[in-house]
């Protein structure tokens, strides 16, 4: 049976709605105005250019200055990067990082491999956070009543006003994962005993807090070990994308998914959810249920496990629940059940299920808990009521923006106006800050000292990588100042660590040595949650992280944190009473009418990242929409309504309505729709960032006081058509007739090691027989046959589709490493996005309502037989002896023939001067320079080792050639051979699941060479015989065989419907370049 693979409905239905004729476009030489060119005009232009050239030629060279440091800091050598261990903290988002600085300015974030939580992985948000340091719209000084003031005045006034305040003082923060900050807050509360500390998170996990508080007496989120679970069941929890600690979970999850012939074992992942989440897209078994039925589904599982009756009305889902229950029982103590619902009743039943399965102490622990996700919905609701009642005398906002994100924002703002003293630490004049009296801007995290304990026992430190750019002050120092403590926060953290953390280890005798080591590694991890002396588990013996030696970027030996025991797991059964919860869920029942699910977007989060151009331009992993939020409805519902994708729909519930574009989302539960939060900001910064519509006002409240992200009784009305949507997936469709994704079930793989990869095997055999089709003549001196490619190194990449979860961390990482420009919403609509690497999302199977999903990172394949190289008229793109498909910008004249001829659609053309690299200033597409990188502030993020491209040239993935050269040079200087894994590409270091491996293909001992010769390895569009340097490892799913989705063997394929495209490409669909391009003007 033929493999069904499609990227969007345009492709499935063979529509051309989003096809964009890139190559028919006029060059925007004269802006948008079209001018008829007459002979006279031509002569005028010619005359002008000749005289301009003459003037330019006669001009003297500009005098350039070189200004050395007067007193050069010892650790800085100009031109050499320094790395400092630090921690990215934004509310509940945490990542242990290394900050790459050049000449004292941070330019890139890397993961910290010493961390036992993130293991060197990062997220898109972590990667992009570097840009928020250089944000044009940060507050540059303190303000009072909207006017510039000084810290001295502010401190004087606030200290007086806080002492004399009538009523309570409210400190509203996001989750505070920094223990020292908590101590500072405690000190503040000692000074002002009428202070209440309200933790507010717009995307709340309060349900879990309340459930654990009721059942275990611990108001915190339990810690999870997805790597220890053989069966993972998630009810709407997007634990790979947004839920609790996604980087950590992605790393754990991937560990259980690395499958090989020697170890053909992997976890089995079940997902029951209302909309297609990133996690659901990775599931082995996925069931679509209505968002309001999550509770009922959890109860059904509880009943199936406990043997009591009562299940879901949906027969298909019920069948899944029953099968899941059987597998869970068989894996007692080795399974994990999680739910994303914010209803404490649902979470209590989940706790009961995990207790019944003996998972406590094995795959999850209530002793070791998270400090993230501390948002207390009831406290926040109470505060807003009190503010309106006038009983709050002062309010301080720290990293929260309720005027935008609180469901009843109007009520909140009305209450805020009644508070006499209002203070904000927010870094910009956002929706909340514009309504407060004193603006006391906080430093960026890269300018701050801080510490963190995201999970108990896992400490980490944050150190400033740059002096504050503006006249800002750390929020903690402000709090301490007002509390009467004049200590700076650095000394404060040290003192805290000396008193509270130092004693938890016994490796270091002196505090100074301990502090230096912890600061150097960025982390300190202990298995002893008590404050008595325990075993020291720290990366103290690992190689240096921060030193300026050339090998600093290399792997740091991972800290020993918790060893995964191989021995048999003993289930620890815990009886958790959930009877009341079950009846409460039953009583709540199903929501009325159309349900709206309000969900968090992997890129944009709760809205605090809105002003980050890299995140705005990184496509959402599933819908592939950027710069916007869209209404997701099921394809069935959309068709029933007679809508088309990109129609504009009015969404109305209660008194609130928004108009948003609609797309048909496979995997969306019929009878429900979904809208992402994080959009619809009004004061994020530049107007370009105020995109999308605000979904927060749709949030309601559950019976237990938690925020309810499922809204029933929503009405949808079509009000317009043809919204200009920036959606990247269908911009570069690869034809479905071809072998793109290798997919097989685990069972088949166990039987046949070439499962899902028979094409590759067939082509290998043909090649050996000399029987292959190549577009560009026989490969005489190309590829593996050419001697010059075997001389020294030959760089290659391997992507494990089984590990790739599609989170998109690599996309902004690549952007930032390689100075890839952000082009803005309008340009993405015109198919001008510049991503060097993208993650293709494929839907598999004929079921448009619940297809399987495969993510495939796609970048330049560095073909040995590259189709792009032989069409370039000026040889601007050619092949290096090390297997790199080189792109020489200064030679490129912009014919774009190469882009047209590339079967993978990975070449990007600079339609405008996105960086103002030309001397002609502001010859750009942007109305203003707010989010482009050509003002003095934003340009600071550019990587000085990579050319900034000007208008009119093609660019594409270079395999991070600057890193290759740097690594080679370091080895030469040190008189040694290159080590495997020494050189890492930016996408590789960003990846939380180690899905991308880079190395020297010519050395058979390298990881990448071994992966390329693995039987699971295949090349994309292998039949074209372009001999790519990027290999893909087939995706293996732990489920039964599914014909029509799994990759068939070629014989089946050709016998089935006579699709012989790969054998006779000259017919029918034509040559590769033609069938695989949507851009292609040759159609």
């Amino acid at each position, binding site marked *: 049976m033929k493999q069904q693979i499609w990227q969007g409905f345009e492709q499935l239905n063979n529509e051309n709605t989003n096809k964009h004729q890139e190559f028919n476009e006029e060059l925007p030489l004269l802006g948008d105005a079209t001018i008829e060119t007459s002979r006279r005009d031509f002569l005028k232009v010619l005359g002008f250019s000749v005289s301009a050239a003459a003037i330019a030629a006669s001009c003297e*060279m500009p005098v350039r200055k070189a200004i050395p440091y007067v007193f050069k800091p010892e650790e800085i050598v100009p031109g*050499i990067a320094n790395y400092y261990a630090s921690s990215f903290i934004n509310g509940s988002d945490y990542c242990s990082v290394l900050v790459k600085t050049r000449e004292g300015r941070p330019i890139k974030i890397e993961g910290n491999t010493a961390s036992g939580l993130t293991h060197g992985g990062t997220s898109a948000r972590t990667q992009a956070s570097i840009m928020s340091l250089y944000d044009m719209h940060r507050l540059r000084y303190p303000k009072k009543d909207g006017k510039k003031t000084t810290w001295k005045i502010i401190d004087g006034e606030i200290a007086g006003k806080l002492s004399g305040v009538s009523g309570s003082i409210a400190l509203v923060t996001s989750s505070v994962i920094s223990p020292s900050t908590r101590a500072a807050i405690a000190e503040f509360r000692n000074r002002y005993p009428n202070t209440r500390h309200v933790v507010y998170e717009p995307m709340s996990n309060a349900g879990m807090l309340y459930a654990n508080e009721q059942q275990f007496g611990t108001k915190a989120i339990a810690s999870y070990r997805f790597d220890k679970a053989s069966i993972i069941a998630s009810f709407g929890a997007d634990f790979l994308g947004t839920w609790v600690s996604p980087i950590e979970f992605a790393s754990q999850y991937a560990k259980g998914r690395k499958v090989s012939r020697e170890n053909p074992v992997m976890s089995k992942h079940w997902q029951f959810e209302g909309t297609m989440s990133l996690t659901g897209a990775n599931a082995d078994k996925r069931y679509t249920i209505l968002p309001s039925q999550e509770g009922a589904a959890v109860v059904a599982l509880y009943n199936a496990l406990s043997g009591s009756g009562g299940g879901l009305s949906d027969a298909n889902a019920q069948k899944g629940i029953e099968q899941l229950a059987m597998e869970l029982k068989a894996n007692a103590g080795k399974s994990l059940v999680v739910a994303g619902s914010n209803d404490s009743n649902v979470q209590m039943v989940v706790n009961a299920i995990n207790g019944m399965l003996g998972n406590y102490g094995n795959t999850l622990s209530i002793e070791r808990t998270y400090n993230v996700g501390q948002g207390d919905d009831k406290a926040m609701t109470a505060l807003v009521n009190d503010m309106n009642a006038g009983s709050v005398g002062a309010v301080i906002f720290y990293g929260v923006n309720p005027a935008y994100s609180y469901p009843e924002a109007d009520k909140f703002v009305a209450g805020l106006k009644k508070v006499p003293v209002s203070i904000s630490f927010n870094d910009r004049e956002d929706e909340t800050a514009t309504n407060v009296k004193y603006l006391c801007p906080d430093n960026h995290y890269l300018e701050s000292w801080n510490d963190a304990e995201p999970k108990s026992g896992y400490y980490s430190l944050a150190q400033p990588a740059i002096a504050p750019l503006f006249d800002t002050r750390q929020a903690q120092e402000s709090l301490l100042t007002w509390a009467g403590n004049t200590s700076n926060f650095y000394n404060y953290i040290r003192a805290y660590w000396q008193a509270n953390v130092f004693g938890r280890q016994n490796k270091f005798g002196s505090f100074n040595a301990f502090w230096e080591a912890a600061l150097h590694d960025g982390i300190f991890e202990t298995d002893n949650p008590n404050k008595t002396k325990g075993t020291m588990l720290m990366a103290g013996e690992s190689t240096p992280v921060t030193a300026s030696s050339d090998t600093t970027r290399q792997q740091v030996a991972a800290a020993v944190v918790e060893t995964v025991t191989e021995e048999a797991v003993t289930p620890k059964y815990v009886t958790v009473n959930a009877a009341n919860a079950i009846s409460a869920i039953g009583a709540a029942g199903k929501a009325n009418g159309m349900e709206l699910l309000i969900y968090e977007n992997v890129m944009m989060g709760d809205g605090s990242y809105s002003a980050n151009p890299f995140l705005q331009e990184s496509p959402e992993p599933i819908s592939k929409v950027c710069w916007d939020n869209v209404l997701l409805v099921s394809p069935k519902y959309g068709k029933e309504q007679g809508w088309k994708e990109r129609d504009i729909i009015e969404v109305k519930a209660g008194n609130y309505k928004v108009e948003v574009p609609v797309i048909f989302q496979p995997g969306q539960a019929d009878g429900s729709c979904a809208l992402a939060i994080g959009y619809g900001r009004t004061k994020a910064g530049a107007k370009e960032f105020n995109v999308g519509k605000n979904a927060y006002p749709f949030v309601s409240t559950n019976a237990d006081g938690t925020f309810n992200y499922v809204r029933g009784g929503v009405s949808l009305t079509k009000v317009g058509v043809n919204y200009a949507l920036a959606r990247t997936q269908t911009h570069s469709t690869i034809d479905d007739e071809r072998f793109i994704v290798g997919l097989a079930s685990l069972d088949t793989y166990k039987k046949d090691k070439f499962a899902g990869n028979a094409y590759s095997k067939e082509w290998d055999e043909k090649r050996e027989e000399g029987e292959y089709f190549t577009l560009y003549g026989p490969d005489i001196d190309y590829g593996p046959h050419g001697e010059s490619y075997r001389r020294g190194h030959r760089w290659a990449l391997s992507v494990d589709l089984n590990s790739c979860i599609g989170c998109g961390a690599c996309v902004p990482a690549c952007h930032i490493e390689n100075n890839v420009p952000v082009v803005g919403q309008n340009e993405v609509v015109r198919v001008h996005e510049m991503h060097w690497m993208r993650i293709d999302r494929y839907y598999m199977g004929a079921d448009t309502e619940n297809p399987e999903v495969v993510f495939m990172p796609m970048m330049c394949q560095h073909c040995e037989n590259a189709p792009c190289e032989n069409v370039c008229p000026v040889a601007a793109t050619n092949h290096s002896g090390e297997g790199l498909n080189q792109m020489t910008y200064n030679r490129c004249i912009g014919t774009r023939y190469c882009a047209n001829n590339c079967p993978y659609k990975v070449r990007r053309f600079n339609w405008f001067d996105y960086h103002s690299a030309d001397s002609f200033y502001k010859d750009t597409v942007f109305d203003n320079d707010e989010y482009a990188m050509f003002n003095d502030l934003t340009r600071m993020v550019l990587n000085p080792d990579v050319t900034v491209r000007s208008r009119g040239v093609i660019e594409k993935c270079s395999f991070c050639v600057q890193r290759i050269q740097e690594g080679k040079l370091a080895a030469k200087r040190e008189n040694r051979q290159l080590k495997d894994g020494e050189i890492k590409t930016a996408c590789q270091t960003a990846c939380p699941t180690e899905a991308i491996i880079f190395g020297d293909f010519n050395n058979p001992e390298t990881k990448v060479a071994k992966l390329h010769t693995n039987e699971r390895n295949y090349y994309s569009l292998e039949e074209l015989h372009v001999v790519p340097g990027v290999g893909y490892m087939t995706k293996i799913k732990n489920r039964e065989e599914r014909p029509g989705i799994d990759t068939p063997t070629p014989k089946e394929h050709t016998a089935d419907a006579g699709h012989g495209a790969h054998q006779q490409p000259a017919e029918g669909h034509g040559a590769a370049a033609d069938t695989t391009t949507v851009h292609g003007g040759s159609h």
Partner: protein
Amino acid sequence: MQSKFLLHLLALLLLVSNVWSVSAQDPRADAAYKEGEATFKGQCASCHAVSKQVVGPALAGIQDRRDAAWINNWVKNSQAVVKSGDPYAVELFNKFNKSIMPAFNLSDKQIDNILTYVKVEVENPVAAAPAAAAPAEGGGVSNNMTLFLAIITFILLAVMLVLSRVTGSLNKLVKEKAGQLVPDSYSWMSILFSKKALAFLTLVAFILLGYATVEQAQSLGRQQNYAPVQPIKFSHKIHAGINKIDCQYCHSGASKGKSAVIPGPSLCMNCHKAIKEGPVYGKEEIGKIYAATGWNPDSMKYLNPPQPIEWVRIHNLPDHVYFNHSQHVKAGNVKCQTCHGEVQEMDLLKQHATLGMGWCVNCHRQTEVNFSGNNFYKDYEILHDKLKNDDISKVTVSDIGGLECQKCHY
């Protein structure tokens, strides 16, 4: 004319030999003095001068003050002498703010040589007699020479032309006398304006102009021989040439990374805390370093706010070129002078090379890689085999990808 030139030459030789004969009687020619000078400049000069106080006391007259044994003990381990309670030593230590003179591992002979050096310096102060006029004279001679040759050439050419005309006319006359029919001679003008000549001249003009255009176009943005005036009249000749300071003492980045690094004035202060006056500009130029660092030479402290020095950048590469000093200096073992010229002889630094791509590529074609000496190249097995089998005699940079675009452009 010629006799005048010879006269000049004679005078110059006389001058040189005079200087020679003077130096022969100089106590400075003594081996002990020279060794002493080298040791003194290498190890002592950062804290001591002969006749003035720097960090430590002036050394003039030291032999009158202390005996040789005491001096030897002091130099080898001053703190031991202080601890032994020697009253002179204690007094000296206290007088100089208890700044410790480090122990020097010098032999008695070396110390003796230093003392000889100091003695000679005191007894024979250097006469301020700059012989700066001589080179200018020499330059004049060579200029005259060129002009002279040019005039000679011109005259000879003219003579040749006249003679050839004369022989031509005579030949014609002889032939006419012999009764031969001689065609009308071509006039110069007719030859000049004949079609063939015009075509030839056009071609020559085209080639010359084309060449000039290409040359000019290529040199756009190039700055060979660029020698701007710098904010401080720093002389590489004095530092790298005369005083033989290693290039990488100041340009310390050259072996470590991309940038060779222009040293900050704080590095200058390592020496110029002691060396307060220069030989040419006296205190003026060195004073600029003090101004930049905020150093007060009287109180010997950094008192004023630092002020960065804005040097004029001489070597500029386009933004699309990646150049790494350590690749060439450390990995390639290329001498600084290969690209920067004889810097140690330049008072005012200028750009030696074109820094054009052709210049880079030529060197990459010709330069041999230290193929067996650096373990990095072990990966290149095929080339090693070829070398072993004498298929190739050497491996140049271009053999291992030195001409590929992304070696320098990314």
